[in-house]
């Protein structure tokens, strides 16, 4: 079984724990991290917003942020693997999170990812835009985990046609 585990900042520990618990011992695991380039773009844009200031050459401007982001991704995956406690491949990508994850999931048997939305209530809002896209487009089975405690069924909102009791 080929398994892809999407490692995200914030919720990575919970994802690794679930992957270790539910993936079979002989699974061929790849730990994936995708660096979103949006924040780097926003950091550069803030600088370019300054009118008339001399601009550093594009490389000098872009490279430091990119290097920081790449080093952080390497370290995160190394620590995730240590926590997983099994051999695993590591893969880093850059770009739009959801598209890169779907692309990396090609040829996999299962994709493990954490919900990235409201984690206190059952329901569609428990998926943010990125996880929503991945769940909808993944070319394989998906193991969708709750990053902390799974909410109980009473957290489901009432059906839309029931009116709240009036006094």
């Amino acid at each position, binding site marked *: 079984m080929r398994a892809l585990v999407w490692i*995200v*900042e*914030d*919720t*990575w*520990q*919970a994802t690794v724990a679930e992957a270790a618990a539910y993936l079979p011992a002989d699974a061929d695991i790849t730990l994936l991290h995708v660096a*979103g*380039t*949006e*924040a*780097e*773009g*926003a*950091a*550069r*844009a*803030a*600088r*370019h*917003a*300054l*009118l*008339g*200031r*001399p*601009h550093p050459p*594009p490389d000098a401007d*872009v490279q*430091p*942020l990119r290097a*920081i*982001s790449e080093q*952080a991704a390497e370290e*995160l995956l190394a620590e995730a693997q240590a926590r997983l406690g099994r051999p695993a491949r590591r893969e880093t990508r850059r*770009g*739009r999170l959801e598209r890169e994850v779907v692309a990396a999931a090609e040829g996999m048997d299962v994709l493990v990812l954490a919900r*990235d*939305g*409201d*984690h206190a209530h059952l329901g569609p809002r428990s998926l*943010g*835009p990125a996880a929503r896209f991945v769940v909808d487009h993944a070319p394989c089975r998906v193991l969708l985990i709750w*990053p*902390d405690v799974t909410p109980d069924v009473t957290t489901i909102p009432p059906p839309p046609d029931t009116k709240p009791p009036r006094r």
Partner: protein
Amino acid sequence: MPEGLALALALVVLASTLGAAVFQARYVTEAAAATAGALLLVAVGAVSLSHAGDALRELAPTVGFLAALLLIAEGARREGLFDAVGALIARGSRGSAQRLLAFVFVVAAGVTAALGLDATAVLLTPVVFATAARMRTSPRPHVYACGHLANSASLLLPVSNLTNLLAFHAGGVSFARFAALMVLPTAGAVGVEWVVFRRFFAIDLGRPRQPEAQAPRPALPRFALVVLALTLAGFALSSLIGVQPVWVAAAGAVAITAPSLASRTTSAAALARAFEPGFLVFVLGLGVIVAAASGNGLASAVRSVLPTGSSLPDLLAIAALSAILANLVNNLPATLMLIPVLAANGHGAILAMLIGVNVGPNLTYVGSLATLLWRRVVHAEDADIELGEFLRLGALTVPAALITATVLLWLCLKV
């Protein structure tokens, strides 16, 4: 030269100069474009030599002030202030993305107010990006917060934004009075940003996290902090002791620079880069070009549009129109155009204008619509910039921040 022709020529020169600065043409620097434009306008008589000289003489102290501030910010960076602050807020956040955002707000507002928006945009933002990466949380809200607060928090002190410095030299308020009038408007604008950011980035900030290893407490660079504190105290007391604030800034720049020059930890060349001589020349050239346009009818055109009173509706209209102008032509030329018109109307109008030109650029995040569109077209590597995200965040924050800050300014002017 007939006035209409002179005005048309001055506007064309202004547009070309802004074009060179916004589009970052490879063959002509911003400074060269502004200098050539100013010389051309003098040569053809669109502005007389004495008028151009007056414009330069008025701008010279402002530009000197700016150079000193840039040197102080560079000194603070060299001493490791920004890295230390990044490590400090990472530790203080104790693993919570929301607490990190709160600290980023405090630090970005403080750096912007004390060292100016350049320091936040250029020096603090990469540190905040690295801090979020090290803390293993999404950098998005924190980086956007730096970009927005570089504008919103730049209302507080005359040194927080070049636009403030220009207005400060034109209007007759003391450093301390400026700060006293602007403290509530700044708090209001930053408060609006905080409320919007918490909701806008709820997903990034709300992901459940497990505790991670705590970083050791960093050592803060005492020398840089002492120089900064003394410089700010000097600004506050400048009118009492009868010293121009520009000399306080110069003293601060010398104090923070001299030791590392003496110990050769920095070179004269690095210092020359730090105070950005090209930018200073650009500001001077732009000043002459705008003076030519203003003197040939632009000022009376602006005067006919802008309200003159200091009632709340007038102040709101001034702030809104200034914000619109800043988004059309960038806030630096907008300020240069508006100051001569508003200077006669008292400092309420000038401060409302500053709220507009300082907060307004957040509408597009990158300074102006022209900058935004051009960057979309040309810079292929910017394909990852979320245009819609910038504009939505701007639309949610800017009108509310403008109104809140202007109402608070009006209240402060009343008492």
